[in-house]
């Protein structure tokens, strides 16, 4: 766990003049930051054209050379930091950018431009690279169009380098960084300047930057539609509430005080939580549940120990494929899974078969009008048997390194489960014939994320060893709300009683058949949901590791009986609003510090 930032910046804001502005975004890394804003932009170095005298030209060309060398040096450094923090795949982008800087097509053109136009190097670089950016943006291929961004980044880096403004040197310590887009490497660099918080326009809870922010303990949020860069001015005092996703600009003295208090309470809470580390997730009357981690990147493995996760409830294996842009070989997969198991053992690690489709990937050459209802999850796996087979082989072979579970994504009918189980059985015979070892009793489970499965949970529970409820998709399908669609995003609500009833039904069905039920959606990490999910009988919460302490704290502060009563009351409500009321009452009654932190 990174050290808690408890210091107060030296300056204090002048809160008398400006009007307070409160904006709702999406919190992606918990905590509070109160500090002046620093507007971080890669796209605005100044680039006025200057007319040079003939004698100045050689000096200008030398200036360009030096700037290119500096930019290369910076990029190599960023590449090595990125590689260290997130792995070698991410270094490819930087390597290509170095190649651009060394490309005579660019360097010769820029030099010739300076000579022919007798202009400054900034202008020459701008004109030269802008031409290529234009060409790429004109491509009919969306993915290649996006690659123009890499040229843009190179251009900005060289321009900055020409003006000798290194990114970092401009940022004072203890600022909130406001940017359109941040990379993981940016966050790493910022952390050296003790940046207190981040606000960005682009990204998601699983983006590189979000994961890095959480790993570094930097409170962060994403603007939801409003563009942070436009509404915040350099030097404005801002408050980042990484829990609720609220950004306060030019806070009033009252708001300031309110958040200083929350900040202090949160520090205290974190201290208490670190004392909780070694204690089990157990209610006051001794009901025990498991708190597990969701995993995507190797950078998160150390967090398992840090937050005392009791195993991994979800390994998103598709991320490995997406990152590589190709199918991994069986041996490559084995190595990855082994690494996870070695970090997780003696606790269990749950590998979800690659879950592509939906928002994760566009099956090439097929434009799906409704990708979320299209070719995704287990449907792709069953149509791509070689992909499926090599992954099952790798998971089985890895199972000797620690308790392993295999999970099937996006199941909608029982035939799919049986088909995968047959494939597993065949694979075991194959492996045995080859003399390879594996855990012959490896557990197989399914994601419950589609209403058809939740409704028929009794049947499915007979067929598998465990369930994991995926609330993001379940909610989307139950409420018919596309969670990626801004127009209806505010109708996406896991607290809708229909969603809760399906969750309760699924848990009951599983328990009747004696199987285990976990939850790995974002809902599991929502502290407001903890009492009711506990009361419904959920066996395991699988969340991003940073959320483990606060969930544990809630669980250790109530009885199972109490939780069951909350769940019962919740299940008879008519809408999400009244559900929230029931839950918030409990938090209110208990005067828990969390109540003051949570925006209900």
């Amino acid at each position, binding site marked *: 766990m990174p050290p808690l930032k408890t210091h107060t910046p030296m300056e204090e804001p002048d809160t008398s003049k400006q009007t307070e502005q409160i904006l709702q975004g999406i919190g992606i890394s918990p905590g509070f930051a109160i500090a002046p804003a620093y507007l971080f932009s890669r796209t605005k170095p100044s680039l006025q054209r200057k007319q040079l005298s003939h004698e100045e030209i050689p000096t200008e060309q030398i200036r360009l050379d030096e700037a290119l060398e500096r930019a290369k040096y910076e990029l190599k450094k960023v590449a090595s930091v990125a590689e260290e923090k*997130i*792995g*070698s*795949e*991410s270094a*490819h*982008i930087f*390597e*290509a950018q170095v*190649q*651009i800087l060394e*490309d*005579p*097509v*660019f360097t010769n053109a820029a030099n010739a431009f300076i000579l022919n136009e007798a202009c400054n190097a900034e202008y020459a670089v701008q004109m030269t690279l802008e031409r*290529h950016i234009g*060409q*790429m943006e*004109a*491509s*009919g*291929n969306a*993915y*290649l*169009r996006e*690659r123009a961004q*890499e*040229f843009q980044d190179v251009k900005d880096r060289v321009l900055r380098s020409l003006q000798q403004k290194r990114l970092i040197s401009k940022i004072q310590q203890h600022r909130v960084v406001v940017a359109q887009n941040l990379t993981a490497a940016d966050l790493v660099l910022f952390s050296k300047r003790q940046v207190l918080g981040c606000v960005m326009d682009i990204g998601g809870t699983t*983006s*590189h930057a979000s*994961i890095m922010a959480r790993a570094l303990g930097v409170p962060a949020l994403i603007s939801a539609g409003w563009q942070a860069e436009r509404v915040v001015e350099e030097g404005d005092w801002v408050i980042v509430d990484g829990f609720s996703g609220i950004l306060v600009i030019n806070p009033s003295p009252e708001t300031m005080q309110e958040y200083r208090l929350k900040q202090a309470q949160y520090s205290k809470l974190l201290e208490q939580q670190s004392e909780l580390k070694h204690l089990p997730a157990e209610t006051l009357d001794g009901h025990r549940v498991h708190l597990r981690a969701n*995993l*995507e*990147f*190797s*950078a998160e*493995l150390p967090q398992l120990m840090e937050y005392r996760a009791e195993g991994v409830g979800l*390994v998103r294996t598709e*991320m490995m*494929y*997406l*990152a*590589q*842009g*190709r*199918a*991994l070989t069986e041996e*490559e997969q084995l*190595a*990855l899974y082994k*690494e*996870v198991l070695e970090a997780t053992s003696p606790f269990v690690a749950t590998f979800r078969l690659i879950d*592509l489709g939906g928002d*994760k*990937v*566009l*099956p*090439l050459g097929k434009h799906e009008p409704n990708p979320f209802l299209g070719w995704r999850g287990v449907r*792709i796996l069953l149509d*791509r048997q070689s992909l499926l087979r090599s992954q099952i082989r790798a998971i089985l072979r890895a199972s000797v390194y620690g308790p392993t579970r295999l999970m099937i994504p996006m199941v909608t009918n029982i035939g799919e489960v049986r088909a995968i189980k047959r494939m597993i059985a065949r694979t075991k015979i194959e492996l045995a014939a080859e003399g390879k070892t594996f855990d012959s009793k490896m557990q197989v489970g399914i994601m419950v994320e589609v209403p058809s499965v939740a409704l028929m949970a009794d049947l499915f529970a007979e067929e598998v060893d465990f369930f994991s409820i995926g609330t993001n998709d379940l909610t989307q399908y139950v409420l018919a709300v596309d969670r990626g669609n801004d127009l209806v995003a505010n109708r996406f609500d896991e607290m809708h009683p229909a969603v809760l009833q399906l969750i309760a039904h699924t848990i009951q069905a599983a328990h009747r058949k004696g199987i285990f039920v976990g939850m790995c959606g974002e809902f599991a990490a929502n502290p407001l949901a903890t009492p009711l999910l506990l009361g419904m009988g959920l066996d395991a919460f699988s969340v991003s590791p940073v959320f483990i302490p606060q969930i544990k704290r809630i669980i250790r502060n109530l009885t199972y009986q109490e939780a069951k009563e909350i769940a019962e009351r919740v299940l008879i409500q008519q809408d999400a609003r009244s559900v929230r009321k029931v839950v918030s009452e409990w938090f209110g009654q208990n005067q828990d510090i969390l109540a003051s932190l949570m925006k209900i």
Partner: protein
Amino acid sequence: MIKRTVTVRNRAGLHTRPSSLLVKAASRFKADFFIEKDGFEINGKSIIGVMTLAAEPGATLYLMFEGEDATEAANEICAMFEDGFGEEAMMTKVVTPKPLAST
């Protein structure tokens, strides 16, 4: 001069990673290397050239090699296209974060 025709097989087209690999490989040879697509010709040793070709999956490219080691260059580079730059039969064209472990 050696002339070859290749098809972009990797499913994401000549995006950043394959372009980078292609240029790196081409630069090891003395032979000049040019790529033509839709009547547009670029120097295959220039990453800017290769990337601005914007060669999508399925695109046909004409490769030209000239110089003492042209044959070797042609063989190696055609093999890279053939192999889909190590990005075989996947449906993905999204590049997202790093995998679970460094490989």
